[in-house]
């Protein structure tokens, strides 16, 4: 088979640190190539070089056997390379048709004409997206379809998908896989970056695993197993300790005092009369598909979102009815909500680790003129930085420069320093590497053992099964199923979540 893309000794350095080092990588015509590795392994960097976002520091990139060096994404696009990002790059305030033809409009445009052309284009691809719909009203899967339609319109023949399935529901995932098959059928090549190993195993023709910027192994997908991939990714055998077999697990913790109770809580369309309880001394897993309203339920409990003024239901904290209007009120009552999107509302990203953590402590206090300083911040936050095992390049590194796992640990430490008694983890291990996942899980367990009420929201079933003592399943804004860990199985939870 002929190679369409080839990297030879490709190296990309950032400030002298190699993110990708001496990588020899090939992409064949008409294949789906899965690129796997921990966070920070260099997957995104390698593909971003191909997409023209970064130049190579050294080494060669060959397209159709000819050396190329793209100076901009537009140039890569001209050569038929399209990258579909994790966060889609669409203009939310324009409609689908306008987005498809973005950058390729005529001098004069008639909206109706553009809509009709887009309609034809989408039909040819067999995408069920309304061309006149505003992009901001679309779900994640539809947005991805629009991106792909745009790429196809620009005559792309190499598609790079960066974590395409992370935000999709199982149903949407099936759509996506069918789409990848079709692109392949039409002779396009696909690079597929993912954390979901099963997906990679089922969809890819070939698999490459990167670790610390180096290519560890590459080969036909049929030669790989889950264990083999994980071993290549982490360079050590971690499979058993992480997401090990659930059956061999400890006994469930017994519930303590009822800490939080939601009674018929409602908010718009996201939460509809949700009722649930959370108990001290155990971990309550909250599972639901995207759009089930689980994040919103917990955000209401923590004062981040406001519930409906009328018929909003009741929230009880330790038996006392509360109504938090701002997060501060909840924080001062010992409720911590640890965000699912650390970049959006978790981190103070140009500040250092100690400052970030210390701000958690400051936020809970009340005297505004109390004197503080960097040494004070370092001293007070040291305990939690240590407990969370945050590893950073030097003590004062800005948190943007840390890996995803370490950033997540900082966000957690920032909340734990407030000594909360009810801790809500929203997708605690999203975008976190395998090593850090284990450490974060251990910390969550420790909190429950120490008597805190812990809620873990997750859309990853093995994580829910591995951590929870009690499992709640959300669907369409309400809790539809409650079970203990002994009764739970993947099938049972999924059945409740989708039905």
């Amino acid at each position, binding site marked *: 088979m002929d190679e369409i893309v080839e990297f030879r000794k490709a190296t990309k350095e*950032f*400030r002298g640190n190699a*993110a990708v080092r001496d990588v020899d990588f090939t992409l064949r015509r008409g294949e789906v190539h899965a690129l796997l590795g921990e*966070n*920070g*392994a*260099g*997957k*995104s*960097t390698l593909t971003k070089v191909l997409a023209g*976002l*970064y130049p190579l520091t050294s080494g060669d990139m060959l397209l159709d056997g000819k050396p190329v060096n793209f100076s901009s994404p537009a140039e890569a696009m001209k050569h038929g390379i399209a990258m579909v990002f*994790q966060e889609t790059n669409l203009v939310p305030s324009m409609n689908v048709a306008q987005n498809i033809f973005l950058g390729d409009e005529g001098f004069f445009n008639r909206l109706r004409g553009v809509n009709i052309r887009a309609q034809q284009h989408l039909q040819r691809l067999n995408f069920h997206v309304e061309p006149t719909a505003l992009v901001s009203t679309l779900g994640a899967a539809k947005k991805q379809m629009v991106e792909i339609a745009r790429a196809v319109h620009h005559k792309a023949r190499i598609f790079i998908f960066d974590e395409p399935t992370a935000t999709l529901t199982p149903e949407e995932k099936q759509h996506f896989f069918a789409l990848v098959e079709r692109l392949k059928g039409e002779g396009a090549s696909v690079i597929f970056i993912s954390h979901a190993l099963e997906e990679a195993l089922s969809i890819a023709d070939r698999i490459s695993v990167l670790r610390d910027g180096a290519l560890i192994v590459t080969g036909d997908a049929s030669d790989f197993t889950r264990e083999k991939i994980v071993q290549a990714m982490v360079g050590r055998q971690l499979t058993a300790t992480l997401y090990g077999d659930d059956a061999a697990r400890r006994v469930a913790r017994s519930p303590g005092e009822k800490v939080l109770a939601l009674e018929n809580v409602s908010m718009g369309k996201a939460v509809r009369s949700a009722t649930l309880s959370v108990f001290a001394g155990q971990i309550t897993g909250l599972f639901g598909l995207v759009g089930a309203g689980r994040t919103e339920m917990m955000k209401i409990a923590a004062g*981040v979102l406001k519930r409906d003024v009328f018929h909003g239901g009741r929230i009880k904290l330790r038996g006392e009815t509360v109504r938090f209007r*701002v*997060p*501060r009120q*909840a*924080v*001062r009552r010992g409720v911590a*909500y640890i*965000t699912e999107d*650390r*970049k*959006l*509302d*978790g*981190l*103070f*990203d*140009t*500040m250092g680790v100690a*400052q970030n953590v*210390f*701000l*958690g402590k*400051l*936020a*809970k*206090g009340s*005297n*505004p*003129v*109390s*004197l*503080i*300083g960097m040494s004070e911040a370092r001293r007070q936050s040291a305990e939690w930085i240590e407990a969370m095992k945050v590893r950073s390049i030097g003590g004062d590194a*800005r948190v*943007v*420069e*840390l*890996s*995803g796992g370490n*950033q997540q640990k900082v966000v957690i430490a*920032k*909340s734990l320093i*407030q000594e909360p008694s009810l801790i809500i983890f929203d997708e605690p291990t999203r*975008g976190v590497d395998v090593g850090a996942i284990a450490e974060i899980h251990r910390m969550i367990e420790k909190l429950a053992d120490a008597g805190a009420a812990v809620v873990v929201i997750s859309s990853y079933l093995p994580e829910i099964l591995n951590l929870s003592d009690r499992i709640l399943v959300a669907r369409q804004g309400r809790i539809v199923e409650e079970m203990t860990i002994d009764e739970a199985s993947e099938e049972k939870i999924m059945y409740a979540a989708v039905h």
Partner: protein
Amino acid sequence: MSEATANPGPRLPTLLKSQEGIVLALAVLAFALFSFLLPSFFSAGNLLALVRSVSILGILALGMALVVIARGIDVSLIATMVVSVSWAFVIARSGYSLEFALLIGALFAITAGVLIGSLIAFGEVAPIFATLAAGSVIYGLGRTFFFTLEMQNVPPGAGWFSLIGKGRVLGVPVTVVAFAALCLVLHLVLSRTRFGWQIYAMGNNPAAAKITGIAYRPMVVAQYAISALIAYGAGLILASSASAINARLFNSTMIYDILLVVVLGGIGLNGGHGKVRNVILGTVFVGILLNGMTIMNIDYTIQNLVKGVVLLLAIVIDSLVNPRDEQTSQQGDL
């Protein structure tokens, strides 16, 4: 990193790697140039006049900086300044004691700041619009109900008041002392208090600041109240040194000069960073520039042109010498 510490040579290049460094270099250059070219520039009298004239600008810029660091902006500063001071003078002239009148002026400034802050914090109006509109409202109210004359002279019979603008402490004008003192206070507040740290947090990531439990809305109100009070203070010094306050200042380019000082000094308008020394640096540079050009008798319009060009240059050089590092913005999702 190791190269930089091993070799003491590249001190200058590292200095030039920040906007701060560039502005400092430009300031030194301008100072040297003016001293060399203009004999009247490098004289004790002129230098003192220079520092004194920019002190008021500097004080106002300190108020602005506080708000800008927390990702806000306050373009109502001048309106608050002229109206509160003018009104205080009118009250004093109508028979009340000057001290009482000044107290009323201060209360007016604080009230204005609190209302603007509430509009932003609770009404969730964007700071630029809230303060732009509030500035017009304050000025309009003042001119309609509180005073009609543009020029308000300092009320007679208050010897101590004129000392603020004209007096000296150990040979240093009180104006300069006031600027220095406020710099010190604000520096301590920003770097040493819980309030200050939370200001940085709010500017850095407002959403995270809220979720972490910072009293976000009271903090916003406090910022605008403080900046309004600082503006009032600057107005008193200005009135004292000129023996009058001119409400026309509201229509001048003063507010843009303040923003010039803040941005040129290196306090990003997107918040979260910047220190008092950036304000001092910006103030000194703008001061040298304005003073030099005034001595050279350059036309006012040309002066504005030069200010604009300098601002553009500073921003362009900054982005050339110090390109946004691809890695720092991307690392999290590698």
